[in-house]
């Protein structure tokens, strides 16, 4: 098969060579150059904050006080990073933002399991089974996706308190699962709706069991959407601030909350290099995911657009 393709390719190339007129090399027009320059300037503008965070975090306070925000650090020292990680103060506790990092990791896993598990099964049932009021339920979910968080904030505090999980990792996970459910269910439902009817009919003939079809056929088929949703959820849970602030107790606050405490409510003279190093460390995990798996990230962001 490949040899045929190769042969035809060679053939077409030889056809090209026999053309009498040598092709003009494509020249860049003035307008194209203008567009590229404009885009490059915009790209630089987008890079400025990240650049400034990185340089500031590598400077010493002496250099920062000289006041040239865009200059490169005099020497490469990671002292501010070490201080930020290990010793920066959130309120009166000076254990660094590593506390927040660990908390965020601990929050991440139960939140992922709860939110994806709940919405995946719901999406599957709504898409592929004959369920009563499926369409009305979908419409209600669609509406729920737009509800501002503040209007259900206090009742959720009471509900998680009633469940004895308020202030714990599981409390935060439950709230993440609740808030993500409408939009994730819609994403899963739309994906499963694309599964051919024949596959479902064959599966029904074979076993007909709701959970067996889910485990043996549907889950193995949902690799692609799982990656998209996983990345969407990891970044939004990691970057979340308000839920962590509202439902996190002492010792369960996520990294963003600790970061805000370190920088905004700090006492005494501000150490800008430590502040920026803390911000950078907080931003690292989602940024790495973005630069490695960007394609899936963009898919997730556009699919989960209404999540905000």
């Amino acid at each position, binding site marked *: 098969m490949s040899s045929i393709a190769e042969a035809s390719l060679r053939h077409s190339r030889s056809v090209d060579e026999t053309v009498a007129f040598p092709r003009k090399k494509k020249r860049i027009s003035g307008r*194209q150059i203008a*567009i*590229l320059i*404009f*885009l490059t300037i*915009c*790209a630089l*503008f*987008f*890079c400025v*904050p*990240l650049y400034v*965070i990185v340089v500031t975090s590598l400077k010493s306070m002496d250099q920062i006080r000289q*006041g*040239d*925000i865009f200059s490169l650090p005099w020497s490469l020292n990671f002292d501010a990073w070490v201080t930020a990680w290990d010793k920066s103060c959130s309120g009166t506790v000076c254990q660094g933002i590593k506390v927040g990092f660990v908390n965020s990791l601990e929050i991440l896993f139960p939140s992922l399991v709860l939110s994806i598990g*709940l*919405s995946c*099964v*719901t999406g599957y049932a*709504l898409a592929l*089974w004959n369920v*009563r009021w499926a369409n009305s339920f979908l419409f*209600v*979910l669609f509406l*729920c996706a*737009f*509800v*501002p*968080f*503040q*209007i*259900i*904030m*206090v*009742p959720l505090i009471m*509900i998680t308190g009633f469940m004895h999980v308020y202030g714990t990792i599981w409390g935060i996970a439950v709230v993440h*699962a*609740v808030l993500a459910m*409408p939009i994730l269910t819609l994403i899963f439902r739309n994906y499963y709706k694309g599964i051919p009817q024949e596959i479902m009919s064959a599966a029904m003939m074979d076993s007909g*069991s*709701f959970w067996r079809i889910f485990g043996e056929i549907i889950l193995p088929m949902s690799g692609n959407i799982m990656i998209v949703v996983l990345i969407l959820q990891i970044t939004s849970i*990691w*970057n979340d*601030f*308000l839920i962590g602030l*509202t439902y996190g107790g002492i010792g369960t606050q996520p990294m963003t909350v600790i*970061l*805000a405490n370190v920088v*905004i409510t700090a006492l005494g003279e501000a150490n*800008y290099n430590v502040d*920026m190093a803390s911000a950078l460390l*907080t*931003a690292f995990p*989602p*940024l790495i995911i*973005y630069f490695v798996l960007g394609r899936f*990230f963009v898919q997730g962001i556009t699919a989960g*657009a209404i999540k*905000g």
Partner: protein
Amino acid sequence: MAFRWSRWSPQFALAPAGGVTLVAFAGSIGWTIWMSLTRSRRFADYGINWDEWSRQYVRLLKDDIFITALKNMVVLGVGSLLAIVFGFILAAMIDREKRGEGVFRTVFLYPLAVSLIVTGLAWRWLFNPTLGVENFLHQIGLPWARFDWLNYPETAMYGIILGTVWQGSGFYMALMLSGLKSINSEIWSAARLDGVSFWRLYLEIIIPMMRFTFLTCAILLSLGVVKAYDMVYAMTNGGPGQSTWVPAYYTIDAYWQKQNLGLASAAAVVMLAITVAIFLPLVLITAWQQRRQEARAQ
């Protein structure tokens, strides 16, 4: 008839989601609306005196800070429209000049992967009056340049708008780019044959064709503006004074700082009402446009 699990298990599987919708969404919204009609202060007080059901709302509207918050929300909304415009310009340019599409897209979209708190703190640092960008501008010989917007009540909101636009433009660019790519390629060549000018092509042909995408962007933008909180918290924490409060900030402050459940609930209900007021007409227009398009296709 025998009881068949296969028939019932899908319904059971939906029970958790149904329960969440009923309790955490419908029930909770109802509870908050109820609370907004009571005199609850620190703790929930379920009695409603129907003669003065609106007292929390009256208090809200008499509160200058809440009015400021509403005004700020409008200012933020209008200012953030720049993100859509900017996003469209970027998308149109990337779409025209295919070179480097991947790189540009990666750069314009990375702010979305970063926490709003981190973004806000970065901008707060750039706006630092003594060591930030202003100082740099003075050093390069522009002593009149001002970049300390966050320090003054009159300009602080513009600082937040700048940060928000920086953060959101990439997202609208991505939406616009997929909209532009779905436009039939024949239109480009037809326009070139007809000698339609660059500006007319975009203003009179492309943008009207993409009104659907623009509407989607407008819906998402306005919902984001109503919810705005993290960015304000990280950049100004509401200050200077209370000049950059937004409704979301007001609601959370009313609950945690003022410890007034009734007032917080009323503010939350106003937020919901604004969301509904923005959302309904836009969705109706969208549905109407879609139907018209379908009718034309037939």
